[in-house]
Each structure stands twice: as structure tokens, then as C-alpha cells.
């Protein structure tokens, strides 16, 4: 009995140590810095002025709130659309057998691609000097490449959303395929024999079955896209600016005092994501219990 317990403790200790020192240690240290505690430049006072500055000062308030709006819009839109695309993709090819392997391969090809590469790819293809713009002007659809609609580095974050859909749809797809595969077709055949039409089979049979996995994948994608830096840095405009990019600008500031603001903004991002994730979790748990 005692040996069992020791074994469990011993095997749990290394991962817990890593989690505590790296994750909580990092968060704690970041939080301290956000409160203005920076021994490297002789600042030991603790206060919330960095938070106030970021959210309410004349200098940053407008940037912050527009940035937050853009963040929410981009994360919700890209998570939702990527999930929808992946769902229909998975439903369409799970039954066809002849090109299934190839389709599968093509759909999941994006998965190992770094976000940075996808973002650069989006620039090459969709920017005003990109492939599509040149092609369209070449065949006379538009007068010059400059007439091409602004899809990259645009105010509404379309390029960023596009990159996330492109990238995250593959992630959703893999998860959905594995669920659908393991379900088999029995449920659907049963429903069909009971007279359910195509829409009813989707709405009342498939969707409830994949929903839990779809939801948990959405949480991951949402949290990632809310806090990620590289895609908005490459594909975003300088105003409105997504919050992670704004946070990084504070770190670029040669004035070391600005690091407190950068850290405060990072902590704000983390808190917002955590609140949304908890809310989302609560919502899905309630829904699953109800079903």
C-alpha cells in the first residue's frame, strides 16, 4: 500500500515540478513585473499603474480597446469557420473510398506547417502584389494588381482569419475524422431506417456525437489564436492592432519601464483567455449533461 503510494508520488513529481517551476513560476514572475517590480533597474514598488496605463490612459486606451475588439472578432470568427469547414470536409470524405487516402492527406497537410510559413504563404497569394492579384490583372479581371481587394494587412483582420482557418481546419479535421471513424455508420443507418432524412441525421445524430470533441478542439484553437503573435504581426495593420502584437511593442521599447506595461498586457490576455475557456467549458459541460 505504502509502496504503491510512493510510486505514484515519485512518478508524479517530475512533471509536477516542471509545471510548477516553469508555468507557475513564469506566470508569477510575469505578474510581479506587471506590478512594476523590476530589480534589474532598481524598481521595487508594487502597484497597478501599468494595468491602468494600458487600459485607460489617453495614450493607450484607444489602441487597447480596439485591439481587444479585433482579438475577439478574429478568434471567434476563425475558430467557428475553421470548425465548420473541417466538419463538412470530414463528413464529405469519410464515406467515399476511392480518393479517401489522398483527400485525407491533402486535408491534414497543413498540420505540421508552422504558422509563420502559412502567414507568409497568405502574403504571397492574397496580397496586392501577390499571385492572385497578378493573375487577375494579367487576364484582365482588374486594371492593375493594386485594384485587387485588400485581404492582407486589412483593418478587419481578414488575412489573419484566413491564415487561421487555413491552418486550424486541418487540426479540427484530424480530430473529427478520428471520432467519425470510431463511430462507424451504425447510428446513422439506424436513424435512416427510422425515417430520418439527411438533415435530421446530421442535426440529431452526427452533431451531438461529435460535439464534445469539437468543443474541446475549439477551446484549444480559440485560446491559441487569442494569444498568438506571429500571424497578426505579419498579416495585421498597425491600427487596430491585436493585443499580443501590442504587448510585444512594449517589450521593444528601450525604456525598461515599458516592460511593466507589456507584462500587464500579457497578463490581461491570459486572464481573458482563462475566463473565456472556463465559461466555454461550463457551457459545454451543461449542454452535454442535458443531452
Amino acid at each position: 500500500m505504502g509502496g504503491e503510494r510512493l510510486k505514484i508520488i515519485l512518478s508524479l513529481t517530475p512533471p509536477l515540478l516542471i509545471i510548477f517551476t516553469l508555468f507557475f513560476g513564469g506566470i508569477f514572475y510575469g505578474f510581479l513585473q506587471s506590478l512594476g517590480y523590476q530589480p534589474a533597474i532598481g524598481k521595487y514598488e508594487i502597484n497597478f499603474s501599468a494595468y491602468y496605463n494600458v487600459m485607460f490612459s489617453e495614450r493607450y486606451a484607444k489602441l487597447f480597446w480596439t485591439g481587444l475588439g479585433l482579438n475577439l472578432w478574429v478568434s471567434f470568427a476563425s475558430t467557428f469557420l475553421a470548425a465548420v469547414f473541417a466538419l463538412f470536409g470530414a463528413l464529405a470524405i469519410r464515406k467515399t473510398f476511392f480518393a479517401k487516402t489522398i483527400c485525407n492527406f491533402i486535408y491534414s497537410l497543413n498540420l505540421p506547417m508552422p504558422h509563420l510559413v502559412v502567414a507568409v504563404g497568405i502574403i504571397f497569394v492574397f496580397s496586392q502584389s501577390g499571385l492572385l492579384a497578378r493573375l487577375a490583372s494579367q487576364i484582365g479581371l482588374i486594371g492593375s494588381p493594386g485594384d485587387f481587394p485588400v485581404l492582407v494587412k486589412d483593418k478587419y483582420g481578414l488575412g489573419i482569419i484566413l491564415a487561421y482557418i487555413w491552418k486550424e481546419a486541418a487540426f479540427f479535421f484530424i480530430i473529427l475524422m478520428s471520432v467519425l471513424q470510431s463511430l462507424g455508420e451504425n447510428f446513422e443507418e439506424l436513424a435512416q431506417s427510422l425515417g430520418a432524412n439527411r438533415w435530421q441525421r446530421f442535426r440529431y445524430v452526427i452533431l451531438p456525437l461529435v460535439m464534445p470533441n469539437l468543443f474541446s478542439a475549439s477551446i484549444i484553437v480559440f485560446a491559441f489564436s487569442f494569444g498568438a503573435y506571429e500571424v497578426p504581426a505579419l498579416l495585421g495593420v498597425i491600427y487596430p492592432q491585436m493585443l499580443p502584437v501590442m504587448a510585444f511593442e512594449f517589450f521593444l521599447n528601450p525604456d525598461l519601464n515599458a516592460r511593466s506595461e507589456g507584462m500587464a498586457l500579457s497578463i490581461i490576455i491570459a486572464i481573458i483567455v482563462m475566463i473565456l475557456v472556463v465559461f466555454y467549458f461550463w457551457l459545454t459541460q451543461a449542454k452535454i449533461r442535458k443531452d
Partner: protein
Amino acid sequence: MKIKLKFLTLTFISLFFSKLVFAETAPGFNSWDDVVKAADGGQVNVYMWGGSDAINGFVDDFYGVPLKEKYNITLNRVPLKGTVDAVNQVLSEKEAGVTGDNGNIDLIWINGENFWTLKQANLLYGPFAAGLPNSEFVAWDNPAVNLDFGRPVEGMESPWSSAQFHFMYDSARNNYDDMPRSYAELSNWIAENPGRFTYIRPGKGGFVGTRFVKQIFFELSGGHAQWVGPFNQELYDKWAPEVWKLLNSWEKDLWRGGETYPKDNAEMHSLFANGEVDLDFTQSPRGAGPTNTAGTTPPTSRAFAFYENMIGDFNYWAIPYNAPNKAAALVYANLVLEPELQAAQVQPANGFCCGWGISTAKVTDAAGKAAIAEAQNNLGDAAEDQDILAKALVSDIAAEYQDLIEADWEANVLLK
């Protein structure tokens, strides 16, 4: 006991005098010979922006070889994505309590904001610059040298080379003679070529854009001279509204209608190379030469400058407080100021980006003078006329303007 006391007194006296005699030598060393001896057989870890193969090659060939042969020092060049990476590493080392000679970085290629970050946090070794024998070639009385982005250098970094703001155009698309030569002419040019111009957003990481806007202050206010010296809020308040008015009047004719702006050199170059805009910025006295060689601008790109108010500045080498081999770092910082190596860095064929770090007039020996003369006659056709550049040269101004312009530009131009 008595002998011991006598010995101690003697030591103190000699220490006191050595301090006086070698007041200029870098801290921790008694003489330059002492430095060279301590550096013998060591390794110097040089952290520098590594985005240009030509610059990397130049450092390896022109510094690595003589360091090994003359001083028995091994050059270990560590390429960085941005200088701020080295700054953050030193900062982390300080926070982790890495002191003495236990750091990793011996030298950082640095200027402006990054230098200020390290100096502000007391993370630099020095003052050492005046203690280098070749410091005699440096124009320390020039505010463009002894102030870095308007902030005092105070011997905590030693110059390497220089740069000056001016413009590039593509000779395949435009003519040299049609290029604007002042901000007033640029205004007309923008109106006549809607959508073909933009500038780098003034802000962190985009100091070239800040510089572009600073120069407007000089032109509108009728000259650079009144801006030299300590920060003057009144003067700024008088002219800032005029500058924002001018920039806002351009907006509708800028690239993308001024809805967004490129945020650094790389974005600006790619807009120019893709043909989305017709003008680009350069900092090199060789004009479009370095970017043409690197392939970031079209090979037909050429340089031009306004006739007035083109800000020039210097870049430097700094030594972190915990550099593992300070002696070798000093030898390196001294070596790069050798007149013949300075001439080599200006020669286009050698691939380096920038201009003189020394004042060429201070060089008196024949070999150095010959090398300088040859380099000056050989800048390549992608460069602007050096006389035009020299006549337009002005120094940067007090550091306070930098932050103010960046914040106010955001409020009055971007967010308005």
C-alpha cells in the same frame, strides 16, 4: 608588521599613480600592453545582427584573420535576428545574477535605443572607448559621435561605422532628375503620384520612420540649428501641429490611403521591391548598393537625397558588464578603427553596409591616407553624390523628441 605596512602603503601609492597615469585605459587594465597580453589566446564572442551574408563575411574575413594572426584571438561571431535579442540576454543574465567574467557576450553591435536600454540598466562595461589607441581617429567632439540618438555615449561604446538617412528610387521606373529634393517637393510628388508613396510608421523598431518625420520639423521650422541642444518643449509645441497637418494632408494620396503603414525597413523594402510604392529609405552612404547586392531591392535601384536636413548617425560596439573576455573585446573594438580596415568597409566590393566610423581627416600616415582616398573614389553607381550627402548632413537631436514624436504621431496621424 612594519614591513607589511610599508608594502601596503607603497601599493596604495603606486595604485593611486597608476590610476592617474593611465586614467584613459579601460577599467581593470593598467596599459594597452596589459590589454593585449590578457587577450592573447582567448576567444571574443561577437553578437551582431546576422541578416546579411555580406556583412557577416566582411567581419569574418577582415577582422577574424588579423585577430588570429596578430593577437592570437579567435573570433566567434554569433548572428542575431535583432540586436534586442542580445540586450534581452544581458538583461536576463543580470536578473539571474551572472556577474564578473561569467557572461556569454563580449561585444554587441549596437546603437540608439538598445544602447540606451543597457546603459540605463548599468549593464555595460566601461568607460573604455577613449582608452583605445585608435580612438585618436574618432571625432569625439562631434555631437553625432558623442551623442547616440541624442543620449550621451560617455565612453560606454566605441564607434564602428556611420549611416545617413536618404532615399532610393528604381531607375527602371523613375528618373533621378524627377526626384523630389525637399519635403515641399515631396508633397507635390505625392499629389502627382497618388498611392505610390508611404513611410515607415514612427515607433519602436521603426526609428527610420521617426527620423523621416523629425526631418520635417527641421524643414518646416526653417532649419536644423535651433533643434540642437537640450530638449525644448516650446519649440516642439510650436511646430508639431504643422507637421501633423502636412502628414494628414498626404494621407489620401499615400499607399493604401494611409490606412496602414509599414512598420520597419523590411516591410518598406518589400513594398518597394514589389512595385507597390516608388520610393524607399536607405541609411547607407553607398545608397542602394547594399540592398541591391542583398536582393531586397531591385538591382536597378539608385539613391538620392534631399539637399538639406538628412540626419546622419553612428553605430558602435559595446561591451556587457559581465563579458567573459573584456581584453579581447577591447582589442576587437580597437582593430575595427584601423584606418585601412575602415577604408575596406567603405569599398563596395567588400560587401559591408555603412560608412566611416572615424574622421578620415585625422589619419596622417601614408598607407592609411592612400586607402581612404581609394575608397572614397569607388562608391559605386547606386550611391548618391557624396557632396550632396555631406552638405545635407545634420545630427540627430535630443532623445526626448523621439518618444514624443512617436506618441504624437500615433495620436494625431494614425488614430485621428
